[in-house]
């Protein structure tokens, strides 16, 4: 049986090396780099918030742990 291959589709498949986009709990479709970007945004935001409002009562190390955990969660499930 002759196997037909659409040359355009085959070429697209070979050249399309863009990262896979998917939908997680974030409101948009993302690839791993988008999620890493969002993770870094939130890491910085959390650190600044902690320094401003919480550092007097809870040490910044707790924030580091939470922020890294959040970053990993976003890259993994976001």
């Amino acid at each position: 049986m002759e196997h037909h291959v659409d040359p355009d589709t085959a070429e697209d498949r070979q050249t399309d090396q863009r990262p896979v986009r998917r939908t997680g709990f974030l409101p948009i479709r993302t690839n791993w780099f988008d999620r890493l970007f969002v993770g870094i945004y939130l890491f910085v935001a959390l650190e600044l918030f902690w320094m401003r409002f919480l550092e007097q009562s809870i040490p910044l190390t707790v924030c580091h742990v939470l922020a890294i955990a959040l970053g990993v969660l976003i890259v993994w499930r976001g």
Partner: protein
Amino acid sequence: MRSNTVGWLMLAPTIAILAVFGIAPFIYVLYVAFHHWNPFGADPLMTYNGANNFRRLVFDREFLLSIAVTIKFAFFAVVSEIILGYLLAQLFMREFPGRGLFRTVHTLPLIVAPIVVGSVWRLMTTPSIGIIPYLLKTWFGYDLNIGRDAGAAFLLTVIMDIWHWTPLVTLTLLAALLSLPKEPFEQAQIDGANRWQIFWHITLPMIRPAILATVFIRLMDALRTVDEVWMLTSGGPGAATRYVGLHIWKIVFPKTDYGYGAAISVIVLYLTLVMCWLLYVALVAPRQKKEAE
């Protein structure tokens, strides 16, 4: 040679320039941001001080105020420029006498250096010699003095920015409008759609990428504005127009506090990226959702 290798070789000069002039300075600024460094102070050596510069800036009232004023400035300037730019682009789509001349004159502010724009507006708004206070006094009895009136000073910086950068928005949106196909508009007219429906359901979705790109460019520019405002108001009266770029300048140059200035610069870059990303999500997410349905 594989096409991938050729591609990387062709990109190599751009990547090298980006690395030398973009990434390396950024890494250096990031490095300085974690140090205390005042080369003209009592202790000129660069010493590591952890996150203390960032700890200092979240409590710095002047910095927080400058961020708030800058965001307010960027919002009013960019929104006005997009609306005015779109209306002017629509005007230039029509035939009228002197259209070519008007289009040329309209784009002239773009080729004027920001520092010159600031100087010209300073001359035009200086009480007793400026044309604007004179006309406002003669026609409306309003006494304009941007050295005293904080609201007027803020408004004038916004108007100056609109005057300077609306032509850029007009040109971008005009290019987008000229590239649109005619068929959807003709079909909509045959189906009885009114002008508002055509604008909202056809024109706006089709030029959305151009609007998005223009908003990003203008937002980033507005958030780092320095020279125009420096010439017009020098950040005053008080801190009414002390935008964050001016604030950084005052920390780095007169005070020579390089470490703290670098920390503020990093946070401003961070805020700019966050705002652009949020804007991107707000504009792109609904379309993705609609496509998924």
